[in-house]
């Protein structure tokens, strides 16, 4: 295996097969697993299923995942909304992988997303040579999903222009795409649906129309507030990244705790004990960001340090993550170190002195 990152359905193939084999609950048409089994796949299970341990993919509210699955079994599409880095795309990938067997039918929403990417395009050489034909048609991921009765994924829907959003309405309500050049249309096979994601920070960029919103059920993915839960997510995902990329060393557990505590306190603008107010930085300090900082410090330690992840490495990676948007954010972290980190014991002491060296101008 040389791929850096395998799609969910390949990476967790054994789990999915084991679940399918022992799943005897009724499945909605076109689904590879029953809703219950999909839930087990996403949330993980304490006991092995068919001899295979099911790892948790999403750590958080089970009810929310159930609402998402229940929505996908209906004629409504699913919209996952939330702050950046709250695992929206992650959840969308795993849902598509578990239900349709593929998470690859994906359209990335950008300001330049065109209607061709949503519906179909043409192989112009063929088109000019032979005229419109099925062979010359280049189907979009959505068109392919419709034909095959699978899930298509639409990332960052609020980034696309309103024309594209409008085009989506007819796809979602008619469940078919007309190809006038061929004088025919493609109607969705059973099992087709769309999982879209939208970023709440983008609200107002291209606000979705009421008509489009009506085609979706909304599930808000919350920012993790529980310390232990977020530490679990961060360490688990960091370990996964480490094995995927074959690089980095394992950071001590206490360091992960320092990092997540710092993130949560900066995010909330107040320390965990509710006693000290903290200045909030403007950039998004998401769980995903914490994962990458921790991963990054492992690489730093391996290649530029002595093989042990130290607070020094953490501070160095942290700087790049926090200072994305403005210099003021570094100031916020510096203030945090002076008011909060300074007074704490354990690794915090080393963290503070490292931060003092690195962060001061």
């Amino acid at each position: 295996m040389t791929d850096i990152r395998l799609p969910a359905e390949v990476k967790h193939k054994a789990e999915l097969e084991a679940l399918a084999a022992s799943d005897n609950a009724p499945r909605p048409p076109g689904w590879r697993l029953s809703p219950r089994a999909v839930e087990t796949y996403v949330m993980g299970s304490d006991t092995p299923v068919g001899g295979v341990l099911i790892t948790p993919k999403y750590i958080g509210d089970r009810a929310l995942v159930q609402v998402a699955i229940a929505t996908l079994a209906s004629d409504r599409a699913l919209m996952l909304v939330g702050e950046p880095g709250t695992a929206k795309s992650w959840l969308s990938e795993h849902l598509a992988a578990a239900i349709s067997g593929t998470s690859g039918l994906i359209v990335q929403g950008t300001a330049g997303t065109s209607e061709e990417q949503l519906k179909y395009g043409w192989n112009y050489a063929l088109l000019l040579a032979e005229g419109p034909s099925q062979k010359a048609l280049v189907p979009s991921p959505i068109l392919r999903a419709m034909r095959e009765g699978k899930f298509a994924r639409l990332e960052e829907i609020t980034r696309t222009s309103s024309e594209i959003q409008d085009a989506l309405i007819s796809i979602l309500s008619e469940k078919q795409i007309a190809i006038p050049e061929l004088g025919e249309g493609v109607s969705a096979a059973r099992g087709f649906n769309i999982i879209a994601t939208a970023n709440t920070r983008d609200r107002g960029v291209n606000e979705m129309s009421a008509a489009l919103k009506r085609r979706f059920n909304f599930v808000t993915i919350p920012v993790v507030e529980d310390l232990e839960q977020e530490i679990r997510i961060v360490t688990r995902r960091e370990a996964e990244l480490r094995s995927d990329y074959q690089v980095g060393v394992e950071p001590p557990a206490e360091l992960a705790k320092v990092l997540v505590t710092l993130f949560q306190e900066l995010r909330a603008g107040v320390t965990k004990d509710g006693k000290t107010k903290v200045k909030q930085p403007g950039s998004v300090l998401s769980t995903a960001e914490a994962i990458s900082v921790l991963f990054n410090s492992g690489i730093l330690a391996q290649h530029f340090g002595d093989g042990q992840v130290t607070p020094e490495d953490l501070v160095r990676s942290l700087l790049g993550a926090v200072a994305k948007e403005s210099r003021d954010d570094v100031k916020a972290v510096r203030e945090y170190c002076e008011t909060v980190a300074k007074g704490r014991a354990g690794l915090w002491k080393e963290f503070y002195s490292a931060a003092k060296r690195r962060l001061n101008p």
Partner: protein
Amino acid sequence: MNLDLLRSVHVFPIRHHSPRSSAALRAFLEHTRPSLVLVEGPHDATHLLAALVDPGTKPPVAILGYRVDGEQGSSLWPFATYSPEYVAVKWAAERGARAEFIDIAIGTALAPHEGEVVGHEDLDDPGSEESWAPEHEADEPAAAVAQVQEEEEEAPRVNVYQACAEARGFRSFEEFWEASFEAPAYDPSSFREALIAYADLVRAEGDRLVHRARDAFMARQVLERIEQGIAPERIAVVVGAAHAAAFAAGDVDLSLDECLPAPVPVAATLIPYSFPRLAEQLGYGAGNRAPRYYQRAHDAGCDFQRATLEVLVEFTEHLRLRGFMASLADTIEAYRLAVRLADIRGKAGPGLDEVREATIATLCRGDAAHVDGFLWPAMIGKSVGHVASRIGRTSLQEEFWREVRARRLPASDAPESFTLQLTNETEVGTSIFLHRLRIGEVPYPTYLGTQRGLGGRAARAKQDAALDTQAFLSQVNEAWEAQWTPATDVALVEKIVLGDTLEQVVTRALGERLANAGGAGDAADVLLDAVLTSCPVTVSAALRACDRLAAYDDDLPSLARTTSNVSYLVSFGSTRSRSSVGDQVLVPLARKSFDRAVLRVRQACTGDDEAVAPIKGALRTLHDLATSRPYLDQQAWAEAARDIAETFTVNPACSGMCCGLLYLAQKLDEDEVSRIVGLRLGAIGEPLAAASFLDGFLEVNALVMVKSRPVVEALDAFLAGIAPERFRETLPVLRRAFSRLGTTERRYLLENVLVARRIADRAEAAHIVLLEQDRERLVAMSDELSAAMDDLDELL
């Protein structure tokens, strides 16, 4: 007695306030057709059953049992239309059967037993132990401690319910109950089996002695009826699941009821109850999470799907009214999603959690705010029950309801706020009524503040601090918030021992305060409260008490308060009548207490800082009064104050304050002030005393002080002159003194210091420092401003 007979009786297990129990029970009663229905409820309240089923009674209502021996203690037995106990009694009334309560007497339930009261909770309800705790206020700390210990010991048991729910994959016990017992369409016998099986499980975890004793008591009651000649199969017994399970298993020890304590003297009545209170007592009965939702289900023949649809349609309507997009397609989708969710979770039908989650995903587009802000309250409802007129209400209840109706005051169990204009006679009457309730400690009104403007965030602090009665009397409008709760009626029933009318209750309460008054000040406070609540008898009694107490009161703050309150009455020509007293009584009284106070000033001002803290407040009051009331002896005050300012044997903080006060009133000119301040802060004095003087001085009006250049010069010289080794011990007092200065005062101080030291050219640097601080304040302010704008946006 033959326990086996118990098995031939038709025992039906229930959980309080469970619509499914009610539906199954009704079918069960129709099938068995008993001639005697015995219900779990205090047996000495059986006489209230006729009123309970009276067509004039509209649940939710509650039986209120309260102690009449002067001790605190009461308890409630609430009934909703969907409560199985109510359904049983109602069925009996409709079919001509007899209905009786068979549980322990109210007096026994309220009697103390092993550190807490016996109570009437059921084993099969989680959290029931705590839910009633606030009702029985434990007076002695020992009892409270015992109660805490008891709860700690029982903590593992409470977790049995949670464990039971979690084992089946539910998040809470309520969800487990709803999914296992409410949603499935049981027939009576399968429901009975399922519920008894569950109760057996809980009973296996161990049972409290009082529960077992109540098992015995109720079993004895049933057996007595059989002995009286009623055939066992003609009797239906409707009791909590755990009791029913005990009966079914024959696991009853008849001797145990002897361990119950002797009953305390009590009385009982029926009072209105409300849905929000039912919801509050989660744990006492199932379904209380959302009474209105359960009411709907009950009304639809225990059809939860129908209730869900109704709730969703109503919510759609609400969203449209507020200008949100909400289509019928969304409503349908919400319903379908709820059903699918229930299906995924292996439930027979959607419950509260499914409705909530489905609504958020569909109608609310992922935003929980509307659901929590409206849908949830709508599920709970705010209905208030009504009690048939045949239940004699106390005269206080009569008066309360008469006034509330006549004055159109809020009568629902949801807070409503309103403003009274005290310029018209009717609203003054309303104000008096509300103040009487407030002082009589009847929970209903909450005073919000003087104006609507305050009614917003600021007034949320509510009346936690003692309210200043003077502030009340000077107002032209008052903002109130009122909310009827069952506690209102409970209080009205209990207060009847204090009087037949609210005026009598207040007169009595104020009379007690008057009797306990330690000084003239306390009596003067009562005087003002009496005027506020229009209690003429107390007004004259309080006046007499004031007069009497002022004659030998030596407490300066108390005397100052008396003077202040009385002279307030003299000049107040406002909204309320002050009965027959006139200035001819009040002015001499004010003079008397004032003169006496002035004579006590010197003596009061000696003492350490802690002792003079209240004195300083009194000095300011006296000063304000002396300068504003022509009938008081201003000269005497000025002399007394000057004496304090100049004397070194009194507390320096008092000297500082008097000096400041006199300077402010222009009784001392610049020269004199700088002389006194210079003397005080001079090098010969003790630095600590000087700092203390400064503290008192700046407390009066710091701005005026720091604007005076001679004062600042003296100050500067003093600070620069403190020996380094003494500086440290002076520092805390100095810090306190200077912390009184705001930004503006600091700027003046700085400017004057700069001038005094002839370094004004460096003022630029200082100016920048100050500007920086101002900018931060501006930023903070703009945060508040944007928060306000957000609020406005939300409103619009």
